[in-house]
Structures are given as C-alpha cells and as structure tokens.
C-alpha cells in the first residue's frame, strides 16, 4: 500500500526555472492565511483583518513576481513554471500547475482584486469568518487558473462555489438565501455536464491508449486528433454548458443578477471581477482546444448567444430600477463581447476577449465598489433614492462617472481596447454578428448614462443632501482599478504582448485540427516610416 509520502513526492521534476514551486505557493498562500485567521481568536477582529490584508497583499506581490518571471519570448507559447506531482494515482489525477499567456493575467487580476475587496469591507460584521472565506476563495480562484490537470481544475472550479455561497448567504442582503442557493445549484448543474465531459474525454483516451491521465496538454493533443464528428460535438456542448453557466451566457444568466444584487460588495467584486472569467477561460483552455472542429462548427451557436447576450443584456439592464442589477446585467453584456471575440477564432478576437476579461474585472469591480460605498451610506440600491448624490458627494460622483465611461468602453480606458479588438477580430470571420453586436456600444451608453442621470443628477433631496462624500480608504480601493484601466487603455502593449504567443498557438492548434483557416488581411505595411510623405 503506497504511503502518504509516496503520494506527495514529485514524480516529474518541476521544469520551473526557479528552484521552488512558485505556482503552488501562489495557490496555497491564501489558504495558509485562512488557516492562520482560523486560529486567531474571534475577539481580536483587527488581527484577523491584518491577516487578511497581509496574506492577500503578499499573494498579490507574488503574482507580480510571477509577471516578472513570465518569459515573454514569443517563440515559447507553451506553459511555463510547470509543476507536476502525482496526487490521486488510482484515478490518474496529478497535481499539475502551469501558466501561459491566457491564464497569466487572470491570476494577476484575481490576486489584485482580493486585497481591494478585503479593504473595501473593512467594517463588515463577523470579520473572522469573512476573512477565512475570502482567503479560501482566493486560493480556489488562483488554483482554477493555474491547474493543468482537468480534475484538479474541476476541483477548484467546484470548490469556488463553497466560499462564495457562504459569502453571499452570510453577508448578503435581503434575498441572500435565495440568491446564494440559486448561484450554487445553477453552477453545480452546469458543472455536472462539464464533469461528465472531462471524464468522458479522459476515458476515451484511456480506452485507446490504455493510459489514464487528465493532463490538459495530453488530452488537448489527443482529443483534437482523435475525437471527431457527433461525439466531439456532444462533448463540446457538455463543456460549453458547464462554462456557459459561469460566463454567463444567455439564457443561463439569470442567477447572476440575483447573486450580484444580494451579494456583499466584496462578493460582487470578486464574482464579477474574477469568477465570471472562469467560464470564458474554460472555453479557451478546454472546450476549443479539445474539440477544434466541433468548436468551429458550433461557433455560430455561441456567437448568436454572445450577440443576444450583448444586446439583450443591455436592454434588460436599461429597465432595471436597481443600480446593482444594472451593473450585473452589464456584466452579461460585457462577457458577451468576450465570447464573441473568443469564438471569432482570430488573433484579434481572442486577444480582445481576454483583454476584455481583464478590463471588465477592473471597471466593473470599480463600479461595484462604488455602489457598495453608496449602500453603506444609504442602505439601498434603488436608483430613485440617490437623487442629487453627485452634488452632495462630488468626489464619489466624479469617480462613478469615470468608472461609468470606463465601463462603456470609452477609448483611453481598457474597456475600449478589449471590445474593439474582439469586435474587430469577429468582424473578419463573422461580419453580420458584429454589426449587431456593435449596437451594444450604443446601448451600453444608453443604460449606464441613463442610470447616472436618473440616479445622481438633479438637486439633492433631503435624504441625500447630507450624504457624506467618500473617504480616503474608499478612494484608495477604487483608484487602483480605474488608474490601471486608464493605463491599459493607453498602453495595453505589456498585456497584449504576453497574450500573443499563446493566442497564436491556440489558433494554430485549431487550424491544424480542423478545416478552419484564420482569415488574412492585406498587409500594406502598418505604418509608413516617419516623415515619408503621402
């Protein structure tokens, strides 16, 4: 009988150029923090909070270090800092971690959002358990993006639900029980299909090669090469359902508004900022690479859903009387752009999709933070209750308008880069979808500006006249997000450069294993050398 030791000793030496397993640290650091918080006595809330800040900040620092360690050499599109240990030998499950351009920034984003979310909820009740859940959630989130073993991925994918469930159910608002339950069951139902899909692929491979592994790389190569036709389509759909719920894609989105509306601020920030990205990430990491042909064949379906999500989400958002619901539905629309870009299967599209994921995390995160501050003051989300807040709290108003335009996707903010690229990329392969989707650009302005006008403008009424403006701590939580969004709006290069190799590799993979050929555009040199005349 193998000993516990044998279970955990590395089998394949980590090909990380570092001497130590950075990624594993990254995954477990928050969990350790959670453990520490657990043993801190509950009557010392300030200690617990300190633990929370320190751990999450440390994690963020580690993530930054990861960014520096990431090799940007475009000739090396593969996974980096690989770690590979045997875990559940009997089931062929291995502890395999790795990072590539696609996951890199999702990790960074998650690591960035958590300290902010914690800081934003400094005055929350029951800080101990709150911190514990948040840190566990962070571990799981980072794990999702780093796992290269399908089952490990699924484990994190599923485990994410638990802390989130408790965050919503424990610190949410009026209807939190319903919302939390809905969130949990919805996602779990979706993941059932995903789980079935993962197992199916692995065992199909085992039947033909007599080796059982859930290693994403292996399954990618094998699945793309050996699963064809109807089987591939069915499996692709199984994966798609699982991820579509998370994204969420129309018509599987109705858990999102409820979850957001009733979640605490921190919950909403993390949910929108990081968790929704798991869905799109899953498409890029599993569904498309495993079944390229099926992805190509079924792309129209996903594109239609994406376009519907963009327009429908926007229209429904416009009709909401509740500010938080509006932002929630705006997420549906934004993620629609992501999926549109992803299933354009062009470089610009996928890059744009990924970039939108990143920027949506920043802008929507900022919006949720601001709405949360408003809630702290007015204890409501109803638009009609905020009349004239802008005048009463100018700093808040200014920041909110800035966040609004960032979310609308005004050039100069990161949102534009993402949306523009994904639309551009999609335009090359599926023109008319984009024509419809671009109306989302108009609609975004409609519902957000309308909301701002309905909510904040005008003379403040008695209830709002005395509303205190936001303070230093609160500004500190929002500014990084908006600043980063602004920076990436003008200088997205650092991100895009790191995305490119992986994106190129993915497209190449799809082209290799399907009848799809990425469209080409005439190459009349990008720009004339400076100074040459017309």
């Amino acid at each position, binding site marked *: 009988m193998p000993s516990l030791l044998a279970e955990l000793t590395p089998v394949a030496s980590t090909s990380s150029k570092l001497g130590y397993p950075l990624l594993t640290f990254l995954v477990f650091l928050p969990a350790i923090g959670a453990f520490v918080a657990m043993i801190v006595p509950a009557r010392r809330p300030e200690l617990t909070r300190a633990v929370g800040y320190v751990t999450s900040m440390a994690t963020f620092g580690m993530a930054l270090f990861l960014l520096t360690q990431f090799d940007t050499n475009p000739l090396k599109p593969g996974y980096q800092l690989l770690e590979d240990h045997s875990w559940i030998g009997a089931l062929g499950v291995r502890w395999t971690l790795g990072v590539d351009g696609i996951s890199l920034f999702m990790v960074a984003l998650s690591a960035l959002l958590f300290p902010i979310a914690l800081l934003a909820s400094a005055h929350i009740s029951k800080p101990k358990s709150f911190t514990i859940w948040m840190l566990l959630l962070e571990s799981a989130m980072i794990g999702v993006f780093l796992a290269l073993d399908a089952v490990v991925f699924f484990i994190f994918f599923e485990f994410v639900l638990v802390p989130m469930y408790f965050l919503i159910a424990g610190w949410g608002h009026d209807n939190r029980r319903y919302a939390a339950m809905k969130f949990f069951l919805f996602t779990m139902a979706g993941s059932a299909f995903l789980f079935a899909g993962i197992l199916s692929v692995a065992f199909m491979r085992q039947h033909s090669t007599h080796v059982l592994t859930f290693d994403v790389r292996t399954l990618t190569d094998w699945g793309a090469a050996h699963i064809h036709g109807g089987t591939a389509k069915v499996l692709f759909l199984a994966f798609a359902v699982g991820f579509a719920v998370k994204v969420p894609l129309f018509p599987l989105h109705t858990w999102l508004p409820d979850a957001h509306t009733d979640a605490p601020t921190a919950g909403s920030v993390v949910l929108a900022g990081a968790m929704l990205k798991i869905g799109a990430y899953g498409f890029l990491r599993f569904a498309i690479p495993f079944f390229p042909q099926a992805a190509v064949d079924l792309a129209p379906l996903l594109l239609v859903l994406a376009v519907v999500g963009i327009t429908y989400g926007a229209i429904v958002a416009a009709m909401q009387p509740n500010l938080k619901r509006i932002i929630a539905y705006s997420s549906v629309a934004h993620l629609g752009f992501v999926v549109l870009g992803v299933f354009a299967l062009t470089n610009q599209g996928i890059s744009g999709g990924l970039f939108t994921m990143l920027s949506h995390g920043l802008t929507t995160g900022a919006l949720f933070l601001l709405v949360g501050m408003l809630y702290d003051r007015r204890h409501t989300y109803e638009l009609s209750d905020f009349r004239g807040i802008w005048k009463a709290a100018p700093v808040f108003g200014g920041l909110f308008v800035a966040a609004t335009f960032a979310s609308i996707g005004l050039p100069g903010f990161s949102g534009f880069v993402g949306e523009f690229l994904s639309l*551009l990329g999609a335009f090359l392969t599926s023109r008319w979808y984009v024509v419809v989707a671009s109306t989302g650009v108009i609609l975004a302005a409609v519902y957000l500006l309308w909301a701002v006008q309905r909510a904040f403008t005008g003379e403040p009424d008695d209830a709002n006249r005395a509303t205190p403006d936001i303070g230093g701590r609160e500004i500190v939580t929002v500014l990084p997000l908006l600043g980063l969004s602004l920076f990436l709006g003008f200088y997205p290069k650092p991100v895009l450069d790191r995305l490119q190799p992986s994106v190129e590799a993915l497209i190449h993979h799809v082209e290799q294993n399907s009848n799809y050929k990425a469209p080409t555009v005439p190459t009349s040199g990008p720009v004339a050398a400076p100074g040459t005349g017309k």
Partner: protein
Amino acid sequence: MSARNLLDLAWVIPALPALGAVVLLVFGKRIGERAGWLATALMTLSFVASVIAFFALRSLSPDARSNVSQGFTWIQAGTFRADFRFLVDPLSSTMTLFVTGVGSLIHLYAIGYMHGDARFSRFFAYLNLFAASMLVLVLGSSFLLTFLGWEGVGLCSYLLISFWFERNSAAVAGKKAFITNRVGDFGFMIAMFLIFQKLGTLDYSALGSAAKLPQPAVTAIALLLFLGAMGKSAQLPLHIWLPDAMEGPTPVSALIHAATMVTAGVFLLVRAHVFFDVSNHAGTVVAWVGAITALFAATVALVQNDIKRVLAYSTISQLGYMFLAVGVGAYSAAIFHMVTHAFFKALLFLGAGAVIHGMHDEQDMRRMGGLRKYMPITAGTFIFGWLAIAGIFPFAGFWSKDEILAKAWFSHDYALWVVGVSGALITAFYMTRQVWLVFYGPERWRDDAALVQGIGDAHEGDEALAGAHGGGVPHESPWTMYLPLVALAALSLFGGFIDLPFTNAKLNVLDRWLDLPESHLASSFGLGLLLSTVAVAVGVIGIYLGVRLYRDGLRRDGTDPGVERLGGFAGVLQNAYYLDLGLARLVSGPVTAFARFLSDGVDRAGIDGAVNGIAAGARAGGGTLRRIQTGLVRNYALGIALGTVLLLLYVATRMTF
C-alpha cells in the same frame, strides 16, 4: 533643428492642454479661479506651438508636406497594429491653428463668463481636456487615434453640456448628446473594421491604396464614415442633440457646438476623401443630406425665441453647407467654410453669451431689444458676425459660402444649388430677425407686464439658475469677454481673404495650401462672378425682408410678426418638424414597451420562471413521494411487491423461452 524635428514634436500641441486638464482635475480646488488663467495660458501656448508647426510645415517642399511623428505602439494584436503617432500635414495643421486659436479666445472669454461658478476650475479642466482631445482628433495619424479624440470630445461635450447637472434638463441634454453621438460612432467603428479588413491597417498613410478597392466596399466605408460624421456634426436625422446642447454654458456652445467639435465630422470626411473620390454614389448622398439639413435647420431657426437656439439651428444649417461641399467634392471649400464659420459663429455665440450675461441670464429674445445702447461693443461685433453669416461682401462668410454654392452649381446638380441659395436667403432673414429683436426696437425688457401673455416661459431651467429676470439695466461685459469678441469680429471680416476664388492670381491660398484633390468641375470666372452676385443679392433680400418685418420688434401684444405670417406652419417649425417629439414618443412608447417586455416578460417570467419551474417540479415530485410514504407497513410491503413484479417482468424479457 530641422523642420521635421520640429514637427516630430507635434505631440506638444495636444499635450499642453492635456497637462492643464490633469493639473486642474487634481488640484482644481486649491487653484481656484486662477485655474482660468492657467488653462488659457496653456491653450495659448498650444496655439503658439501650432503656429510654429505651421511654419515648419510650410518650410517643406509642397510635395513633402506631411510628417508622421515618432510614437509608440498603442494596440497590437496579430497583424493589427495601431500606433500612437501624430500626423502633421496641411489639413491637420490648418485645423490645429483655428482650434487652438479660437480655443484660446474662448478660454479667455470664459474666465469672465464663468466667474463665480461653484465648479469654476472643473469647468476649465473640461475645456482643456476637450481641446486636447480635439487636437488628438485632428493630429491623429490613423483612424483609431482620430477615434480616440473623437470619443474624447464626445465625453467632454457630455460633461460640459451637463455641467450644471443640478438642472435636470442639462443632465438629460448631456446624456442625449452622448448617446446620439454614439449612434454615429457605431458607423465609424464598423467603417474602421471594414477598412482594416480591406486595407490591413487603419493608418491614413495607407489610404492611397483604397483606390483599388471594389466599389461596394468603398461606398459602404464612405457611408459608414458619413454616419459617424452625421452624429458628430448634427446632420439630419442625428441633429436632435445639438439644440438641447445649448443647456451648457455659452462658451461651451461657442467652442464645442459651433466652432470646433461639430466640424469634426467634416474633417473626418475630408481626411478620408479618397473613399468619396472613388465611390460613385456616396458623394451624392452626403451632398443631399447636407443640403436638406441646411435648408431644414434654417427654416426651424426662423421662429426660435431663445437667442442660443437660433444660433444652434443656424450652426446645423451651416454644417449642412459644409457637407454639401464635401458631397460635391469641394473639400477645400468645406474646410474654408469650416474656418470662417468657426470665426463668425463663435463670435455670434460669444456675443449672445455677452447679451445673456448682460441681461442677467435672460435668453428669450422677446424680452430684449434696443440693447445696442447698453452694450455697444457686443452689438457692434455681433453685427459683424451677422453680416458675415448672411454672406455680405466682403465678410468671411461671403467668400466661403459663395465658393460652396458655386461648386454646387458646377457639379451640375442645380437642385443642390437652388436649395443652398434658398437656405442662404432664410439664413440672412432669421439672423436679421435676431439682430433686430435683440439690439434694435423697443426695450421690451423694461415692461415685462406688457408681454406676460403670449410669451410662455420657454426656459424654466434658466430661472432656476438665474432667479427671476429683471436684475436692472443691462451692462457691457468685462474686457476678458469683449476682447475675444473684437478679435473674432476682425477675423469675421478678414477671414475670407485666406482663400479668394482667383486661381490665376494665386490668391486661393488655402486651396493651394491644403492641396486637396479638387473635384474637377469646369468653372468659369464669369459664371462664378454671376453666381456670387446672386448669392449676395439673396443675402441682401433676406436682410431687407427681415428689417422690414422686425423694424420695430414684436407687436404690442408680444406676437411675432414672422410667426404671424407663417400661420399654422409656424407651429411645425417651432417644433422642428416634430422630429424630436416623434422620436421621444417612439422611445417612451414602443421602445420602452419592448424593453420592458424583455426584462419582465422574457427575463423574469420566461427564463427565470423556467428555472424556478424546475425547482417547483422537484418540490411537486417530492410531495408526491411524500404522499406515497403513508407510514403503513402494508403499503411499504406493497411497494416491495411491486418492485418484485417489475423485476420479474424485466427478467421475463431477458430469458430464453
């Protein structure tokens, strides 16, 4: 330091106001009212920089007058790449000159106008930000960079229109402006996608190869770009936002909604003229939309009572002329008119602003009259602007409008010319009406009682800001305000000389400077002269009629003689042909209904209902099972027996008989 090195520093031009914007946004509170001077100074510096750039460019040989400055890669994904570089060529240099020039003047003016406002520094921050964006727009070396500026000015316009957001109307107007513009941007974006798909880049430098593109693509691109332009430049039917935009402070109306931003559409089309050169039909569409807009807006302007709304509609109409020019391929004419229009329309707006200021925020012309005695400088300068826009020789307006009409004639689409000319006639008329109602005739502001009846308050909002009118005798503005007026008046008088229609005498300076492909229209000097006389005559007639009708202002009972003449049609005009109203009805009616159906019917009841339905189904199932669970041993035994029977039936199917 060679000319090119100088031109490589073009980024300074937008950078200066941008810097101002940042500083003011961050430290605005501490700086206080000095903010105005800082902003103006930076703006002026930027103007100086533009002048330097202009001369640097002029020093280059005519065929090499284009410089793309060094920059950094903005967005790059795969084969797509957009750089952050500035293109200085005659067109952009011209634009920068008058944007910064007029801009500085208006900044100066605003110092006086905004004096004492709660958010003074914030105002100048926005103004500077606007200027910066506008300069990025004109200097951008690619469509994408232009789009950056394009959206930037849109943002500033939003912020400045709803600058007094305590006023609901202002907030609404700002929102309306941005959204309407967004509709245009939709076209702009699709156009960019198409261009990238066809040319593989969005750089202007690659536009040359557009000539090889198939006709449909070119036309599509051209029209989509035009859609964008329509939004920015308030062409039918996307003009609806501009009149409401007058909710903003007057300097804003002058700078953004008269002189610079609204002309961005024209600039864009001229920038992308190659598509219109190649396309067979796009031009015609543009020309006709412009012509109709010109006429339409002019007629609406006839009956407006708000001093600023008149100018707003007149702006729309003048923009129409520019598009008419672009449509017939007279690009330089369009730019020419853009410049002159910038001069005199800015002048008119600032004048109007001075009047409003002097009248203690009264905007209704029916409550003015005979102001020339009280604010002579304003009146004098305003009259310059009036003559210019009416197209009276030798004012700036004459030359530019005349050139456009002539080009329209030579395009052999005489209907265009007729429309244009009638537009000119009406323009002359309503401007005369305005001048007479404001500066001549009885001083109606003295005896409010006489005209209480008949004059509905068309401007509740203003009361909120101004308090009841009647703050004593009107007064002349401080020098910061009339200095710009004087300057602009001068420009309105001489501005026309930068492009005289005497090709042989090489007096068409601007034309040759811009060196844009002239629509190859046979033109003859003689005929040209004839046409000009006609145009002037029309202007004179318009003025004559106006004077005759409004010699002594309104009737005693306050009715407007013009309105009286027009009879029932006046109502139509006052409501701008009900376009706005109709749209509002449409949105508040069917559109809202549809949206509500989606959110309540489909999302709540439909999809979410289905989800909850599943849960309910499970509950029902549980209930049934619960009822079966009677607690009676014998029932349970029955269950076992039932199961046994089922199993036996199953094995019956398996066994071999």
